Structures are given as structure tokens and as C-alpha cells.
């Protein structure tokens, strides 16, 4: 479990449950536990990218609703704006955005 996808996916998953500075710090610690060999700077960078995707979910879901964007187009947009995640994470992010904007 050392691929870039895996690290970013894990970062995204942890970030979706973190809403305060302490919880973000905890999330980073958990990410470090999952990838102990990863340099801290790289880990923080990965977490920030995961966190950025998590924070944009609402915006993505809202845009998809308002503009009636097909899923495939939304997923392609996600992959372009937030490269490096797995398809499953893009799907999860879109579903989450759909839920948040309901």
C-alpha cells in the first residue's frame, strides 16, 4: 500500500472526517501510521491535497445539480482539478458532494 493513489485516497478519507485544527492534526497522525515510511513533508502535502478535495465536494455536487452535469463529466472535471486519486475516490467525492448539496 505505497502507491500515490493509496496515499492520496487515504488522505482524502481521513480529511472527510476532520473539521477542526485538532482533528486535522489527528488525521495527519493517522495517515503517518498508515504510511510510516513516508517523509513527513510528503505526507503533509498528500494530506493537504486530500483535504482540498474533501473541501470541494459541496461545490462539485452543487455544480453538478445546477448545471445537470453528467457523472462522467463531473468525474473528468474532478480528475483534472485534483489529479492523482483513484477512480473510487472520485466517485466517493462526487457522491459526497451530491449528499452535501441535497
Amino acid at each position, binding site marked *: 500500500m505505497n502507491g500515490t493513489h493509496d496515499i492520496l485516497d487515504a488522505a482524502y478519507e481521513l480529511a472527510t472526517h476532520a*473539521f477542526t485544527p485538532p482533528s486535522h492534526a489527528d488525521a495527519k497522525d493517522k495517515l503517518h501510521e498508515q504510511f510510516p515510511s513516508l517523509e513527513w513533508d510528503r505526507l503533509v502535502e498528500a494530506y493537504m491535497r486530500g483535504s482540498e478535495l474533501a473541501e470541494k465536494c*459541496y*461545490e462539485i455536487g*452543487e455544480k453538478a445539480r445546477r448545471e*445537470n452535469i*453528467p*457523472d462522467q463529466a463531473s468525474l473528468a472535471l474532478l480528475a483534472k482539478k485534483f489529479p492523482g486519486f483513484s477512480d473510487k475516490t472520485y*466517485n466517493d467525492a462526487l457522491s459526497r458532494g451530491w449528499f452535501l448539496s*441535497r
Partner: protein
Amino acid sequence: MNRLQKWLFFLSVAAFAWLPQAGAMVRPFHQSDFTSSSISQPDFQAAETETLIVADESGCLWLAEYAGTNPYTGENVYVLSPLGLQMAGSEVYIAAKVAEARGEDVGAAVKRQLEVNDKVANMAAVTLVGGATFIVTEGAVTPVLVEWGLGSGAAALVGGGIAGGYADLAAQGTEGLLGERKEYDPTRTLVMTAGGACLNWGGYRVGQLLNRSAGASVEPAIAKAETLTRPVAKSPTAFKSMLQKVDTLDFSTPRNGAVFYSGPGQEARAMAYAQKIPGRMTIEMTPGGKYLSANIGRFTRAQQDLIWQRASTPFAKGASGRINAFIKGADPARTFRTIEEDILDESSDVTRSIYHY
């Protein structure tokens, strides 16, 4: 009637034959191309003057009706169109809905129907070219193209070409569609060839427009179908089961514990608040919400909306004491404003609503 008048007459007849249909965004299909039994079963099988109305989940009605019998092949021709609203891409949408209802691969059904649409558009273009070619060759080539068009499922559109052919026959006084050719006249042939080339070009352009129209017009339907069906289409049975399941789930919250949110960035505010104070819960923190979060992904977006809306009612009804709502920038058309807030306002168990803007 001179040649120009003939060509104009041909174009007029052709236009009358299929432009109204194109304008109404209705395209013919054949049973062989679009499995009619998938639209109506068993009603469609013995249809002679059959009209079927199908209602989709959103309440929109769609019409599939018998258009006529192809005199050359004996095949019945049907057209699909929405009832009342003339919505483009109805075939694609219905194909998706049928596949969804049957639990089949929706993506494959959409793709299959798109291919049929493209084929019909191409047939229409070929038919026009065929009509023009008939004029140019004076009846020698067109029947082949016309027959191909008829056999391929574009009968109604082919009518334009046939009518044009007959118009030419009537004007020329020749023996018939497959009759003898007239005497060779270089000047006339040259003029007619030039005119035919123009007509061919026109047919090609119309074909392009048809193809473009088909592509553009089905896009909203595809979007709608995808919105309704991705990521994995579930059968109505599974969806109904989930709705019934929602009624049995626990969305209750402690007194003063219910936390609502709606709008951009409000999840983070609400969750931070709920995580900070024990006993505060958003809907996804309840047992029922956790269950839905883990199991709802396989349903379509529209179904997910309905499931969460169904859950919102017991969640709001179960609220008591003080409730907190983080609703800065909340859309008045979304769940909180349309469902939850009304319930909270009417609830005698809710003593105070604290809105965080």
C-alpha cells in the same frame, strides 16, 4: 414544370415528409433496431394502432405510437415522443429507463440507442441523397438506395426521397420508378447533374445537421439518464426496499442534540460544532445515517436524494428541545428549507431553533 420547379417541388415534398418530425424531435425506429418489447410488453407486440404512454419517475409522460406500415417490407414503424413536451433524445432516455427497470446495463442501453439514432440520422441523409441521385440518374440508382433506407429503418424519412422521385417521374412523364431511361441528352444531363450535385450537397448538409441535432439533442437526455442511473443502476425493487428500510432505521437524537446544516461550507461548521459538544448529532451521525452513508452509494443520484429526503422526516420529527441549524447560504429549494424546517416549525417538541448564519 421546369427542372428548377421540379427540384423545388422535390425539396418541398421531402421537407413536408420529414421536417415536421425533425422539428418535433421525433425519430422513427424499427422493431429490429429498438426492441419494441422493451417499451411495451406484451401490449406492443400485436399493435396495429397501438399507443402506449409510459410515465417515468419524475411524472413526465412519454408516448410511443404506431406510425404506419412500410409497404415495401411490411414492417410496422413506430415513433417515440414525449407527450405534451417535445423533448429531444426521448429514445435514449426511455432506453435508459427500461434498462434501469429491468436491472440491465444502463450504459450499454444508452450506447445502443445512440447508435440507433445515429443510424437513423445517417439513413435520412442517404435518403435525401438518394432522392437527388434519382433526379440525376433519372431513376437508375435511387431505388437501391431507397430500398436500403427502407430496410434499415428510416421509412418515414425515406418518404421524402420517394416523393421526390415520384415528383420527378410525374414531371418527366417517364414510365415508372424502375422504368426505362429516357434518351440521352448531354445538355439536360449536365444541367441535372449540376443541380443534383447541389441537391446532394444539400442532403449531405442536412445529414450533418441531423447528426449534429441528434448528438446535441440527446445530450440532455443522456445527462438526465446518467443522473438517474449512475453509478450503478438499481432495480425499482431494490430502491423500494431501501425506502422501506429507511422507515425502520433510527434517526433519533438526544434532547437538544439535533444539528442541521445546509449550504456551502456548513457541513464543516455543523460537524465541528457537533463533534465539540457531546450529544450533538447531524443526520449522518445517527445510526440510521451511518447505515445510509455506508449503503446508499449503489443507488442513482435521484434515488439517493429520495432516500435522504425520506430520512430527513424522522430526523426532524425526532428533534426535541433546542435545535441548531447552520444554514448560511442555504438554498431555499433544498432539503432543509423544503422538508426539515417545516417539520421543526410545527413540532411542539422543539422549544427553540438556533440558526447559525
